[in-house]
């Protein structure tokens, strides 16, 4: 059994959600259809502002609109929200703590567009920017429900958003919750914290790992800043052998670093293994290829667990590629998501 795949969950959800919210405006920098707001533009043309390939100006315009009571939702690829216009993001939007929503598509290595389109250090950079709230979604339910929790924040928000065909891992009736991880499984051997698409990848390997008698305490993290969910301290404190983080991002400054900070501040001395992009740029290739090449896949998780336990688990590549999740929903509910 595999997960339900939802086509363009953001497109329809955002269209319906913003229908009765006249203060919601969309700004786009020439990637409107690519960011699933082409229908939105055609439906609410008076609230859609095409800003062209001029992101520095777009960030400033959004700031001015937000000061005047509008709620700008900027849609473009992640790299064009924080990398090119970082000064404008910081001085025009973040310093005044304005309610500007940065909906960033193609986080990490989700595009064959290569290094120019791959946001591999966005979380690291934006975690260091005061006043930012950072969300990363891991499935269609979170693609849909992140909009409401972003809307609720009176300050700037950055979303690592998913597009296109997105798996629905979590039930629709269990939306994303601000600064609250999803507790997906319990165990004392290893504490595993995953974010974004890495959660689905981990869920492919975990049944095989658990079958070998390994207890895994698994948290799916969707709020990367603030990072103060007490479940994190609890999970890393209980792990006997290792804490493992898994992120579609550089191991510098993202989820792994945030967990390291929590561990150090709480005196948790368990070894930490950070699965992620190991301080290198990627290149243009398919997601699956890059995940294997960079060590971001299910195999990387198995290897990390083996290292933590000091023994081989004897899980074959065939088993991993065949792995499908049977009952994540029911087990997740048992842990009170």
């Amino acid at each position: 059994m595999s997960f339900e795949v939802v086509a363009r969950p953001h497109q329809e959800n955002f269209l319906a959600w913003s229908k009765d919210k006249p203060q919601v405006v969309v700004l786009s920098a020439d990637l409107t259809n690519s960011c699933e707001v082409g229908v939105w533009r055609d439906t609410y043309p008076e609230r859609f502002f095409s800003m062209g390939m001029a992101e520095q100006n777009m960030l400033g315009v959004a700031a001015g609109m937000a000061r005047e009571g509008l709620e700008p939702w900027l849609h473009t690829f992640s790299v064009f929200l924080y990398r090119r216009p970082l000064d404008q993001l910081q001085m025009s939007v973040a310093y005044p703590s304005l309610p500007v929503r940065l909906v960033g598509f193609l986080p990490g290595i989700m595009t064959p567009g290569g290094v120019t389109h791959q946001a591999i250090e966005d979380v690291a950079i934006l975690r260091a920017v005061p006043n930012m709230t950072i969300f990363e979604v891991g499935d269609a339910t979170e693609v849909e429900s992140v909009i409401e929790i972003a809307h609720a924040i009176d300050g700037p928000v950055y979303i690592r958003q998913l597009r296109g065909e997105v798996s629905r891992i979590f039930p629709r009736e269990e939306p994303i919750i601000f600064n609250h991880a999803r507790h997906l499984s319990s165990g004392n051997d290893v504490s595993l914290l995953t974010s974004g698409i890495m959660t689905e990848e981990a869920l492919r390997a975990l049944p095989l790992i658990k079958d070998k008698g390994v207890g895994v305490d698994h948290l799916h993290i969707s709020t990367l800043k603030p990072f103060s969910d007490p479940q994190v301290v609890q999970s890393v404190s209980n792990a006997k052998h290792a804490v493992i983080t898994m992120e579609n991002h550089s191991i510098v400054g993202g989820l792994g670093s945030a967990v390291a900070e929590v561990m150090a501040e709480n005196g948790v001395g368990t070894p930490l293994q950070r699965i992620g992009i190991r301080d290198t740029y990627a290149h243009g290739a398919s997601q699956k290829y890059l995940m294997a090449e960079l060590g971001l896949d299910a195999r990387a998780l198995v290897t990390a667990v083996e290292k933590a336990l000091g023994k081989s688990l004897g899980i074959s590549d065939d088993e991993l590629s065949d792995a499908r999740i049977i009952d994540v929903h029911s087990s997740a509910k048992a842990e009170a998501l």
Partner: protein
Amino acid sequence: MCDTIVHFRVHSHHPHVVKRTTVLRGKDNDAMGQTGSAIDTSHIHDIAAGIRRRVLDHTLNNNGGYMSQACSSAELLSCLYGGVVNLPPADAPLLPKSFVGAPAPGGINRATGAVFHGAPSAEHDRLIISPAHYALVVYAALIETGRLDEDALADFNKDGSTVEMIGAEHSPGFETTTGSLAQALSQSIGIALARRTRGESGKTWVFMSDGEFQEGQTWEGLQAASHYSLDSLRIIVDVNQAQCDGPMDQVMSIEPLAEKISAFGWDVHKLDGHDVDGIIAASEAEGSKPRALLCFTDPVRGLPLLEDRAPVLHYLRFKSEDERARYQEAYKEMVK
């Protein structure tokens, strides 16, 4: 009018300094000096004199200041605060508050220096200051127009004060944070677009410096304002042709500035920045495009002593007691 540039012929004995406007062409000619405007030009000249006097006094007392910016922009800011910008009235001069902390989510510390511009309304104009290092000049203009208490300058650049050397949005007269230059234009486009969606009639003004036209973001903003036909947007630029490293044409040329902005789809008025009547006429002229008032200014106007330090005029710090004494003498002349 042949196109969107209103030409004023300017000449100068100094390659970087425009001394006066002599001729203008086009239908605005008739309006020159007899604008029919309700704005009291003698009051504006008083404000400008007060700006130069206060900034020089402050520079003397603090052994440093942005003096050339006061000399170049005194008439521009006196026009803006003296009636060209239809700001809401101020009930009484306000004392600046101490710095209480950086803004944070949840509306914490989000109050801005806009309070010195009066309570905003749909009909009134807004004024956004872009070159934040003109702060001292802005404060002086606010004092001269009864919006800021004159004791505020005692807090200038003092620890814990909002009367900062380079203004930020908590500083008097500053509605946004613009010290990283060229961001105010984009912010103001957002403000003007939002106001347009509400059907507001007031204009949105941006005071800019010419150095900002070296930044790419400025041109992105000019392009966007034109694309959206933002006729409620007005920029007024202190074209003093000087920047931190020296004369702009040696650091990075921006000319022909008027032609470039015009090519971006704006109404451009090329003016003598010390000609109050001309500034008022250009601000009140008919037009249906976003409008740029390029005000060519003299960075030593009203304080010829400064010419000795040319071409590096960005910041005045006295090199000797003798030099300070000469400026002290100039101040005495001003207050006579």
